[in-house]
């Protein structure tokens, strides 16, 4: 694969689109949450204002080098995750850097940002950051197991780890989506997805009241702005990943928007309905319900 200047432009384009999409999605989702609570809610473009506000802050403090580059790690993780995936199936422009690695790369690259963020947050010296990281990592280990099994089941089903090929195999009507061809794997992965999105009932990591928003508690101004950018890009990238794996990918932006929005709604609805789990509860839950389903998925694929 020749690597040219145009790839950088394409990548910037993708990042730009997804960033805007992520921000709007955030706004809309919060709006929906407010309407559920019978409030008018924020303006849909409030996330934009917040980001601009944070960048417009004039002063910054720093606790040290790691603290400073943690947001960089985080955003690099988010953008990298997005760019290592084919966003739009069949589009050369929006396949970006998916030639660099396959599904395994994407799965593991998620942690690049997480780990970097955890380090930076910890250098802030705030105990709440460390508590949040402890909770977050604990939860990650739990939902990663059903996710891995589900991904293995899918890779086994399609005999490939190449995301583009996985999407290609799901083309031709919605009945050929993994959702229908491999429902158990889908269910297991979608449960893990709840954990991956970090919304209620699995939001104890950021618990705003008891450990003021957990790991990012010390971040502010531009540093927080970078994190907010990532909060727009990273969930969107994850949504795209799950869409590619389970729901036939997208051949155009509108299709992508519809599908990812609906996938996101799954976690939003669950989050609005269910109260928060403690860490040990969520760890146990992931290792009982989704894991069992994932094991069934594997057994069905194998035999």
């Amino acid at each position, binding site marked *: 694969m020749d690597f040219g200047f145009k790839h950088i432009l394409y990548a910037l384009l993708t990042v730009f689109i997804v960033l805007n999409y992520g921000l709007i999605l955030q706004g809309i989702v919060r709006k929906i949450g407010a309407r559920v609570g019978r409030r008018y809610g924020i303006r849909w473009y409030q996330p934009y204002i917040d980001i601009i506000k944070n960048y417009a802050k004039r002063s910054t403090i720093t606790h040290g080098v790691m603290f400073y580059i943690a947001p960089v790690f985080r955003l690099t993780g988010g953008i990298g995750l997005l760019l290592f995936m084919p966003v739009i199936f069949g589009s050369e422009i929006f396949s970006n850097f998916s030639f660099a690695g396959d599904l395994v790369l994407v799965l593991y690259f998620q942690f690049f940002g997480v780990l970097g963020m955890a380090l930076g947050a*910890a*250098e802030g010296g705030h105990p709440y950051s460390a508590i949040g990281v402890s909770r977050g990592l604990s939860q990650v280990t739990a939902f990663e197991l059903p996710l891995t099994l589900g991904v293995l089941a899918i890779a086994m089903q399609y005999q490939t780890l190449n995301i583009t090929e996985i999407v290609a195999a799901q083309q031709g009507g919605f009945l050929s989506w993994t959702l229908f061809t491999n429902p158990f794997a889908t269910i297991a992965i979608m449960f893990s997805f709840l954990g991956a999105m970090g919304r209620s009932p699995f939001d104890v990591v950021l618990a705003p009241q008891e450990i003021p928003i957990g790991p990012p508690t010390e971040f502010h101004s531009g540093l927080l702005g970078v994190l907010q950018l990532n909060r727009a890009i990273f969930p969107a990238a994850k949504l795209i990943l799950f869409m590619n794996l389970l729901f036939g990918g997208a051949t155009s932006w509108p299709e992508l928007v519809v599908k990812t929005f609906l996938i996101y709604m799954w976690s939003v609805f669950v989050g609005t309905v269910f109260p928060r789990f403690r860490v040990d509860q969520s760890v146990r839950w992931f290792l009982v319900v989704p894991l069992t389903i994932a094991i069934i998925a594997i057994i069905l694929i194998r035999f």
Partner: protein
Amino acid sequence: MISPIHIITLTLGTAFFIGLLKKLNLNISALLMLVAIAAAGTISASWFTAILSGAANAEVFTAGFNPPYSINLLMGKGEALITLLINLAGFLGGVYLLKSLKERGIYTMIIYLVFIMSLNVIVMTRDIFNLFVFMEVASIGIAGLVILDKSSKATQAGFKYLIATGVIAGILLIGIAFTYYFAGTLNIDVIQQASIINFKAGSIAVFLVIISIILELKPFPANGWGIDVYEGANPGIGAMISAASASAMLFVLYKLAVLVPESFLQIITAIGILTFVGSNLMGIKQSNANRLLGYSSIGQIGLLTAIVGLKPFLGAQFELIAVSILISHFFAKAGLFWLSGIVKKQNLKDWAMLRQKPYLLVLFGIFIFALIGFPPFPSFLGKWELIMKLAHSHHFYILAFILIGSFLEGIYLFRWLGFSIKMEDANLPPLTVHWNKIIPVVLSALGVLGSGIYFGTITEIAASLKYIPLLFIALLYVIDFLPVYVKNTVSIAGIGYYLYTIYPDLEGFKLIFGLIFLAGGMLTLVAGYFKTGTRKGFYPLVMLMFAGLVGLIEAHTTFEFFFAWELMTAGSYFLIIRGKKSMTHALSYMLFSLAGAYLILAGFGLAHIGQSSYALDILASVQSFAPLVFILLAIGFMTKTASVGLHIWLPGAHAEAETDVSPMVSAILLKAGVFGLILLMLNMGSQFIGSFNIYYALAWIGAITAVMGNMMAAFQEDAKRLLAYSSVGFLGYILFGLSFMSHLGWLAAVSLSVVHFMFKTLLFLAIGGIVYRVKTKEMYKMGGLIKKMPFTFISVLMGIIVIAGVPPLTGFGGKWILYNAVLEKGWFFPSALVFFAGIVAFLYCFRLIHTVFLGQLKDEHREVKEAPFWLLLPQYMILMVIMLFSALPNSLLKPIGAMLAPIFPEGALEWQGQLAKSGFGYWNGQVIMYIVGGIFVVVFAWLWYMNRNAQKVKQFNIGYSAERPSLPETTHFAYNFFAPYKKALGFLVSPLITNFWDSASEGVHAISDKVRRIYNGNVQTYAFHILAFIVVVYLIIF
């Protein structure tokens, strides 16, 4: 050539002569006594060398008649050797006892001389009544010597001894009488021809003779009197009983064994094995040094008894086996008894006194290792041959029991060694050593070493062994007084030169592991420059371990492999025990290693059945029990890779080791197990029990090891312990990869081995540097050290990114290959565990870096300096390699792949530049590196521009709910970091396995304690034991 009769005349004559001198001059008498024994020994020695070089055996007819009409003595090879040993022991013992002999007066010297003389006669005589007479003389001699020690214990012991030997002698006399009655002669050779065993009465007569001799050898359980005398007597006397007297009686048994049928030999074997296992079992519970030595002596004699019984099966190797084990026992036991006399403390824990005189400790170690059968001591060779022959002749139970007995012996001997090296010695009195007491000990140590090397040179299989590394080690001992940097340089140069010389011969796995062992060794040794002073005794041990490791690489035969394996174990044991608080950990390391080594030995033995060569590739053509061989060897190697169930030695051993030893034993030593497994799998291929694939079990073991190791690591408070458990986990991945027996699985395993070497060295050196600076290993007591040790931080950061397998660093490569391998192989459930383990690794990675480097800097660490340069240097050398492998993954993976291609031609990766393609996916490490780097730099530059004026603040400037922290300790969230996780999943790491081994150990101790209650100290019970023993054996035979 002087007639052997003069051994008797000289000693007896001197005895009479100094009797005539009366108390004229004790010094002259003592000198005369020693001269006489020395002369006797010279006669034996001259005969021994003469017979070895082809002279005929000498016979002495005492009364001028031929046998059977008179008593005749025979001086053959065996007799010459044993009398030589007896006289040597007599001489050294005489020197040792010089002071007490002189104190007790001339009669003691006479008794001593007569005792030595009688032992000589016992060995040489061919007349059974004569044998009886001199056995009685020897008994009286011992009893006489014992009673001269005035303590109550000695008197009691001597009395018991006298009664017991009296009864035994009575039985012997009856046997002799009836043997004479039926055979009409007292001459052994003639009795043999008379074949009286063909009828029952005759065989009973012979039985009584033999059983008496066996009873003299103190068989379990009719041996309470023997143990008591070992405990009660002066250690100098104990040495004589254990070394000289027992050798003589053993030879008698050997001599008389010609009289009995083969079925009786089996009984002898059984008795010997029972004694070996039984007394070693009872030794476990002992805390008294002399009594322990007694149990050990009796055990060793039991083994030798069994060997005498096994003679028909051992063939041409019988002499080698028997003599090598006897000599080891002889020198080691005599030396230990003598040492015990120097220490004068009976409690094993008080042997920590030995540390006051380091050379005594060295001697002690030599004896212990000689007893257990480590190379280069003779018993190593003996045990090897014994096991091979036993396997050949299908004596599997005996083989198993011998190994079990040896293992039990190892338990208490190594515990004792550990006590002496590491036990608290604050309240112990100073140790005084007299020249006459130390010389015999030194000479016996030299004796056992020298004989070991001698045996090595005369034995065919051992001839190919390379002694150059051992010579190099000896050189290092010689220059041990020099400062560290000299020795370090010499060591590095030595390894480097050796690597240079063997490099052309290495290929494939040997090249990779050779580089890990040797280049890795050089790298870790570089860190050694940070030490000052002389670091006494360190370098020879390090080199011993590396000699073992390189021996594994170079081994062509199973024997060479095992030899190297044992060298490595010995070296690493001492390295581990050098650490702080490492006594128990070193012991458990040694015991697991010992057990593993015995399993390997048994495996090699079984593999050798039906094959003439000892070459390693006989494993490829194992004739029988192939799955069993595989399992034995695999478990043996897995003790070194610390797979689940066999891992409990590792955390403590690695955590307590010294700063630069930890990487050696963790990053390098564990690879020896991996190398063994690779050799095993390469040669033996797939193994099935029925239709069950053993490799599937291995995959599960690997996966469980990985999860458990990683999870344990996440819950540790001790940084080095965390790293140690992380090694357990990582070795689990490697085992898992190997179990796939596919190209990708092995590619993952081998590349992970290399990577594990790199990051584990990196991390252990980094953490070691921190521990060196902050003087604690508890992570929660550190924190915020990034500001003080930025360079160390960077290397730990890189290390954990590699462990976690997060792209873009090289750890991800292994993960990616593993995924593809799993998809190809399809073992999903263990694989899921492995991937789960990979995620759990995040927990401890983060904890390691957070609790140590991030968070709050502690008060007392405000002025801590960066780790020493010499610790950082190797870290950064490794970092460069890691970055190279990360940016250009094919520089690591492609050669390994090419090496695996002939073995597993299917499923290789396809390389296009840096792009790797498998049947499932693809991965381009270089591009990922560029992309991630690019994005990172852009975002960073932007953020930097945005916030270029950021105010630097100090560590308590945090938003703390309108308050502010006051103490770093209470602000640093570090202790029990994953508390909720522990609450959810802690049950998975409940110490089941540790509990299992603990209760196993307690069980063995309890059995040991129960069994030894039969020795209630009452002489009548002992006499009853003797009679009951005779009756039981009689009932079994007839």
